[in-house]
């Protein structure tokens, strides 16, 4: 067990280093931060001095070495654009992204499971056809269009919900939350729905397929033969066995929701790490961009690590393999 975890940890470290390296390599070619940092009337001499001051005249490997050395201490340097420590900027904005990600995951999970069950149980109903068609359309429309459409209908025309931002926030320790105020909750609705639609469709189709599969199995037939109520069969037996893959997928998808909330955050001016990243790209704010990519990689690596360890605990075959295999 310990050897397995140690091996997985080592793999994770290598993945992180590779990601950091790629991030650094790519960002070297996205442009020159000095163009955004210095004023229009800066002289050539000022450019040269600033380049030296920021260490941009150093060879690539030296810059990368300092980046890794500082990152290991949690230091990602100072944002070129906002002049604040990058780690502090990311931590400040993380609550907004996490709240949005969880809200959208809950919507996706509840909506997806309910619709999945419904469409599985009423296979031939007209409503099922409509839901399935709508879900296909929903998946094929780009997120930003859905966002803009929702803003147009619910903010501009109906004036029911805010079109941007996070509303009033409350500070609890270092966690700044919008979940405790009315305007915060109202602000959450549209972006959370926008971000949830893709996951919702995915979960719905997964639940429907699993459910149909399970409904055909022998034990459901036997249950029917035993005269159990429809409710007991559908929810007590069928659903329970459907949920295992759904939970796995939802857990894994949570990582990608956090990582890829970028578009939704931009459309709704949601002050999370995604919009921080987008604003940083425009200004070639390399320290923020690199730190963000490393952060996203960390989220994925940690989630995968947990999943692997859980499988290891749950599935005895893996344990045998680990003992005898090597």
């Amino acid at each position, binding site marked *: 067990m310990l050897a397995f975890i140690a091996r997985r940890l080592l793999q994770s470290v290598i993945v992180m280093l590779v990601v950091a390296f790629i991030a650094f390599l790519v960002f070297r070619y*996205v*442009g*020159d*931060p*000095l*163009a*955004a*940092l*210095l*004023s*229009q*009337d*800066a*002289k*050539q*001499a*000022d*450019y040269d*001095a600033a380049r030296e*001051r*920021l*260490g941009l005249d150093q060879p690539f490997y030296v810059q990368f070495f300092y980046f890794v050395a500082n990152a290991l201490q949690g*230091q990602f*340097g*100072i944002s*070129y*654009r*906002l*002049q*604040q*420590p990058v780690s502090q*900027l990311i931590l400040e904005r993380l609550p907004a992204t996490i709240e949005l990600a969880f809200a959208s995951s809950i919507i996706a999970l509840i909506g997806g499971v309910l619709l999945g069950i419904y469409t599985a149980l009423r296979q031939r109903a007209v409503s099922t056809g409509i839901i399935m068609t709508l879900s296909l359309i929903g998946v094929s429309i780009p997120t930003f269009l859905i966002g*803009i459409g929702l*803003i*147009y209908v619910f*903010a*501009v025309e109906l*004036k029911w919900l*805010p*079109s*941007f*931002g*996070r509303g009033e926030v409350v500070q609890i320790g270092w966690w700044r939350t919008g979940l405790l105020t009315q305007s915060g909750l109202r602000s959450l609705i549209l972006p959370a729905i926008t971000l949830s639609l893709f996951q919702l469709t995915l979960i719905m189709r997964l639940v429907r397929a699993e459910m149909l599969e399970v409904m055909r199995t022998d034990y459901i037939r036997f249950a029917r033969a035993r005269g159990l109520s429809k409710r007991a069969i559908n929810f007590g037996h069928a659903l329970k066995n459907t949920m295992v893959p759904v939970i796995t997928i939802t857990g894994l998808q949570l990582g990608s929701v956090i990582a890829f909330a970028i578009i939704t955050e*931009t*459309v*709704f*001016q949601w*002050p999370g790490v995604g*919009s*921080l990243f*987008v*604003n940083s790209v*425009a*200004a*070639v704010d390399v320290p923020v961009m690199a730190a963000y990519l490393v952060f996203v990689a960390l989220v994925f690596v940690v989630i995968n690590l947990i999943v692997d360890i859980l499988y290891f605990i749950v599935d005895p075959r893996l344990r045998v393999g680990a003992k005898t295999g090597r």
Partner: protein
Amino acid sequence: MQKSLARLTAVLIASTVLVGVANAETIRWARSSDALTLDPHSQNQGNTHTVAHHIYETLLGRDNDGSLTPRLATEWGLKEGDPTVWVFKLREGVKFHNGNDFTAEDVIYSIERAKSEFSNMKQLHAEVVSVSAVDDHTVEFQMKGPALIYPNNLTNTFIMDKTWSDEHDLAVVQDFASGASNYSVLNTNGTGPYTLVSREVDVKTVLTSHDGWWGEKPAVTDIEYLTIADAQTRVSALLSGEVDIVQDVPPQDIERLGNTEGFKVEIGPENRFIYFGYRFGEEPLKSSNITDSNPFNNPQVREAMELVLDRDAIKQVVMRGQSIPTGIPNPPFVNGWTPELDAYPKPDIEKAKALMVEAGYPDGFTVTLDTPNNRYVNDEAISTAYVGMLGQIGIKVTLASRPVAEHSPIILANNSDFYLLGWGVPTFDSAYVFNDLIHSKTDLHGTYNVGLYSNPELDEKIIALGTMDDIAARDATIAEIWNVVKADRVLMPVHNQVLAYAMREGVTLPVQPENQPNMTTVTFD
């Protein structure tokens, strides 16, 4: 039940009364990007200055017509008998937000800080040798030589409180390499009309009016300055009533918003021109099929290129009417501008073709045009339009379109044969254009002289402008330089940009030519 209803009514009435008495007018104002910092000398950048002007003040202000106005200085002039010294009389009775008195000491401290190594404002004060106090409310600036237009350089240099700055260790402007932030990035203490209530970077900055301000109390008492990066979302926020004023309105939305019930758009010229530049010199171009000469170096080719540039068509089609075509790379506010220089020729394809034949390029040539695609209004579309126009005389252009962060390094390294750029003139004087765009490229001049144009005679005149002590002679030299620049077609100006601010009916915010609107100028119907 009855009781609680009565209580509710009472609360409602009380709250209405409170609002009535305070007569607070809050303006919610959205723009595409935030100020970079609140450190007043760290960045020389429009958005940053815009916010700073509400909190801090400068010695001199700038009216919406471009003229200088008194601010923290009430009078200014050259010292009698010595054209190398500027004397400023400071406003009396001014207090900083923390209650400290504003004195000559603060001016000396602030100018020295603005001149210091990591300040982005230092170029504007390069000619200042020292600043000294005559008394508490008079300061003298000793210049390297006569500097007639120096007061123009003061309109974005903010005055800090020396005592407060010393308390928070602010003598050094934020230095990225040191890895430390400084206190003034998020905290302020100015003499301006508003004080900082809260700031959430890239999200929201809240200001409230400063009761002790020396000026007339502004109609706007509270400001919520919001960053909304996405243009659609920004306009939606105005339409849904969540904000009152929106800057950076996309041209395609200007007409629509103006025609929408309950909203209006204020339009005015911006102090910024858009131009094309090309490479000079005998050396062949990097991106052309002509490998034995540089076609742009031929004056006939440049004339032909101007004769196919249909500035009015670009205004009509690309800019939807929202631009001011121009024949000179110099906005009308700026000293040195004349209607004669501003005139531009009508397109004449036949004549242009004849010129190309005369120049020895009857079949034209190929070249790459570098253009930014996220910096100026419709920048890429302007370039695309010109590519089509040049095609009429056989100049086949490949368009290389990039975000400004990638475009700028290419430009600064003189790695472009043909490019689009825009330029603002914050000093409102032609010398600013000459120094960076016309003067031969050196460490201190011609930073944006991308085409490496070089005319030693002009260089001498440009340098002389900096130290002339007779305003009439200086203006005459400016005119001489412009005549050469125009005749040589050193740059190919297209138009001056136009600014549009959209707002709800009942609020009026006039357009500021440097795109630095001030909420003290807002009026309510």
